[in-house]
């Protein structure tokens, strides 16, 4: 995913300019080896899957960036795995899972959990994800990056065809992106040559660094090294091909509407949609599957549409035998833990599903770092993660989550023996001893049950430890979005808000800048990163030597956390249960982590 989309023209321009300058400098100074795969392989040095690392030109087995959190003592009762990790590969006649209503059943027209499931099952791009969640070649037959990772050449397989038998090639890929660009749903990536100009300055899309010199070859040119391009392509719907022979001369709405009838549905993934109703989408094998990558273990996948993942509703459906695998919400975890059989078939999936508190630095006294630190230290993350959220979350102290280079589970933003006492001391030092004279703050939260649980706990802890009063303002997601993400007055949107952030895929180059680098594009903390810190951050993000990169990221993380521009709280994990006879798991959300094709018989 790209990191674009500022919320006003000036910011957009500043951001684009800053970013280009930074990337240019990076391109000049960095020395790149055959680094991409090595980098990724290194991430998994402590992973328990232990996939062998191979050369850069081949992506099969790029290494699992799995992070074990076993033995952390916080997750008793669960079998803990990393981001993904699959089944036994044994065929399964039918798999029944929960999903959400897809905004569209064709990639690049919507981006939501429901759409991601459709994309994972019915669509293929150049790269797909294997059993362990790692990139493997799919439509591509081979892949060659240049030395500095700024040019990536993919060679397509022979005989690629849509499920209706129509052949497609590299030009289809190009046409697919160009077709969707003017529709407004393409958000990047900003590293692709020309993309910022096309998105923000109305440049001609033919200037993009995305070319098909011949039907078998696709070239990506980037303004910076892109070591993660395989993961990006496996995850990002915008670069999936769409059946241009249907869309080319038609109104996209009409084609999408027609494709919602399974008789007219055309795709290129291992499954086709055979039934499509508002409550359920059924997939069966695509007899004309011509691509590579995993072909899917189940012969038939039945997805039932729910309003929310992790709901009691889907958990009850699982318990009454209507679903095979389900992700359990925090409310239902105690009943899983109480059931020995169920606990034995439970998996905890750790993924970068951030939950933070965004703080408006413009509002006094939140501009005072001592106050922010006090708020940070007053949170007992262990109690929150283990008791309140029943172990379905990990305490989070920094911006790096498991799976990122430089992540250290023992990192503390402020390392003191007695955090509560230190919090009280800092607040007193800031002029509010015992919370006296501290203004009442407003905390804006989304209506979701687990957010509500977290918000109320935080407010309680702040009150207990600091003696301050925070008022909870519950909004529905769209209202929350317009209050916190796109406020009319960026400086005055409010005091505090919950900041959930499911990172689209596992690279800090995606996460860091979105959170912090653009200084409030995503969350309006109104904090500007000091220039020197910005420089260190930029250097660390695009450092290619994995060891240097890890330590540089850890240092940057620590430096940023000294300022506490945003208060990290927890990482929300997926607790997944599966019925007897099923192996493997998939995450509820987070485009990289769908092991759907890999759930299998035990």
């Amino acid at each position: 995913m790209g990191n674009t989309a500022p919320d006003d023209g000036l910011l957009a321009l500043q951001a684009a300019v800053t970013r280009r300058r930074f990337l240019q400098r990076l391109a000049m100074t960095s020395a790149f080896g055959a680094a991409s795969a090595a980098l990724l392989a290194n991430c998994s040095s402590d992973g328990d899957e232990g996939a062998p690392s191979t050369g850069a030109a081949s992506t099969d087995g790029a290494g699992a960036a799995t992070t074990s959190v076993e033995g952390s003592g916080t997750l008793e009762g669960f079998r803990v795995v990393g981001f993904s990790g699959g089944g036994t590969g044994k065929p399964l006649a039918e798999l029944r899972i929960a999903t959400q209503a897809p905004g569209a059943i064709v990639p690049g027209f919507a981006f939501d959990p429901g759409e991601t499931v459709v994309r994972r099952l019915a669509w293929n791009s150049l790269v797909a994800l294997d059993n362990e969640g790692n990139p493997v070649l799919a439509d591509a037959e081979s892949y060659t990056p240049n030395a500095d990772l700024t040019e990536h050449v993919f060679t397509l397989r022979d005989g690629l065809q849509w499920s209706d038998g129509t052949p497609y090639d590299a030009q289809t890929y190009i046409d697919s992106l160009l077709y969707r660009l003017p529709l407004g749903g393409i958000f990047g990536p900003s590293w692709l040559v020309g993309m910022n100009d096309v998105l923000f300055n109305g440049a001609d899309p033919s200037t993009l660094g995305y070319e098909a010199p011949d039907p078998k070859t696709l070239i990506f040119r980037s303004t910076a090294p892109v070591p993660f391009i395989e993961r990006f392509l496996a995850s990002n719907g915008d670069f999936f091909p769409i059946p241009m022979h249907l869309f080319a001369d038609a109104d996209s709405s009409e084609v999408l509407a027609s494709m919602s009838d399974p008789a007219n549905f055309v795709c290129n993934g291992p499954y086709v949609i055979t039934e499509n109703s508002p409550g359920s989408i059924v997939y069966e094998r695509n007899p004309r599957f011509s691509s590579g990558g995993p072909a899917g273990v189940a012969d038939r996948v039945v997805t039932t549409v729910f309003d929310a993942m992790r709901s009691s509703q889907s958990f009850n459906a699982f318990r009454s035998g209507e679903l095979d695998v389900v992700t359990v919400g925090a409310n239902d975890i105690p009943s899983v833990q109480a059931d020995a059989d169920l606990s034995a078939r439970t998996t905890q999936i750790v993924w970068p599903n951030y939950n933070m508190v965004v703080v408006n630095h413009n509002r006094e006294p939140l501009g005072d770092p001592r106050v922010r630190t006090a708020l940070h230290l007053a949170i007992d993350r262990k109690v929150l993660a283990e008791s309140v959220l029943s172990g379905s979350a990990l305490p989070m102290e920094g911006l790096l989550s498991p799976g990122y280079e430089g992540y250290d589970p023992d990192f503390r933003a402020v390392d003191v023996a007695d955090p509560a006492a230190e919090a009280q001391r800092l607040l007193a030092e800031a002029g509010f001893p015992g919370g006296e004279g501290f203004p009442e703050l407003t905390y804006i939260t989304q209506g979701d049950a687990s957010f509500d649980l977290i918000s109320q706990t935080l407010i309680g802890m702040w009150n207990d430890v600091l003696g301050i009063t925070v008022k909870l303002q519950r909004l529905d997601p769209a209202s929350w979005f317009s209050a916190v993400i796109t406020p009319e007055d960026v400086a005055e949107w409010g005091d505090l808000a919950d900041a959930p952030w499911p990172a689209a895929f596992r690279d800090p180059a995606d996460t860091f800048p979105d959170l912090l680098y653009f200084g409030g594009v995503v969350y309006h903390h109104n904090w500007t990163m000091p220039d020197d810190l910005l420089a260190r951050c930029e250097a660390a993000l695009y450092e290619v030597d994995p060891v240097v990169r890890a330590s540089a990221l850890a240092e940057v993380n620590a430096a940023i956390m000294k300022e506490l521009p945003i208060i990290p709280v927890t990482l929300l994990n997926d607790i997944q249960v599966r019925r007897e006879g099923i192996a493997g798991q998939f995450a509820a959300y987070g485009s990289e982590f769908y092991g759907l094709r890999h759930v299998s018989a035990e």
Partner: protein
Amino acid sequence: MSANGTIARRVGRTGVVLLVVYAITFVCVRLTPGNPFAARAPRALSPDQQARLERQFGLDDPWPVQFVRYLFRALSGDFGVSYAHQGEDVVDVIVARAWPTMSLVGAALLVGLVVGVPLGVAAALRNDSWFDHLLSGVSTLGVAIPVFVATPVLVIVLSVYAGWLPAQGWDGLISTTAIIPIVVLALEPIAVTARFTRASMIEVLRSDHHRTARARGLARRTVVFRFALRNGLVPVTTITGLQVAGLLGSVVLVESAYNVPGLGKEFLAAITARDYPVVMAATLIFAAVIVVANLLVDVAYARLDPRIRSA
């Protein structure tokens, strides 16, 4: 002539009601913060992107212009394209989901009458007996238990523990998935119908004409079922019309609670997603159903009571 005049006035009034509902919905929907595109995008939209999308969907025009356009298109049956269901015509979105909703409401109404009326009659015939008191207690519960409580309770008991019924979903009206939602929805109609039937039957059983019928030697059974019941049902008919409105409210909650892919669930989802065209169309459908239901009630009323017919 006067009948035609009445009908014309009726239709006119119906049109005005629907127009007002449409206008109020339009304003409410637009006053709600948030916009249909921002929250669905993986990133915050740039003003450019936002503007482009708004232009594409005609949201950049002033409200009155948008409203008039909505209205005239709606009059020709064109409700536009859903924002949340990419490319899908709003009419298709509605049609695909209308059947579960309408069949649930219809079935609950029917169950309400089929169960509620006999219960009410029985209670009236045994006025002040233990059965009467039990029924009045139980019917208070029926009205008091909210559907979003009743649904999960039934699911836990009947699906999760007993394993008799599915815990969610919709396989059609004639399927095990319909049982829990219909039962939950029918609770209030049963209770209300039973209460009204009881009250009106007690009144009828005390009436002069009931006494006349008895004085003619007609057996109690004949009098109750051939004559009194029809009298007793006149006020129940009115209540049944009002219940349609109540049921449309409940069905939204029940569909969400039982994961029924119907209009009610879609309505909530559309509000959450700020899918304006779907919200507008669904509101109109709901309003139209209420209007039609009340029309049917008036027809039934007139059929039952000749005094209304000639009035």
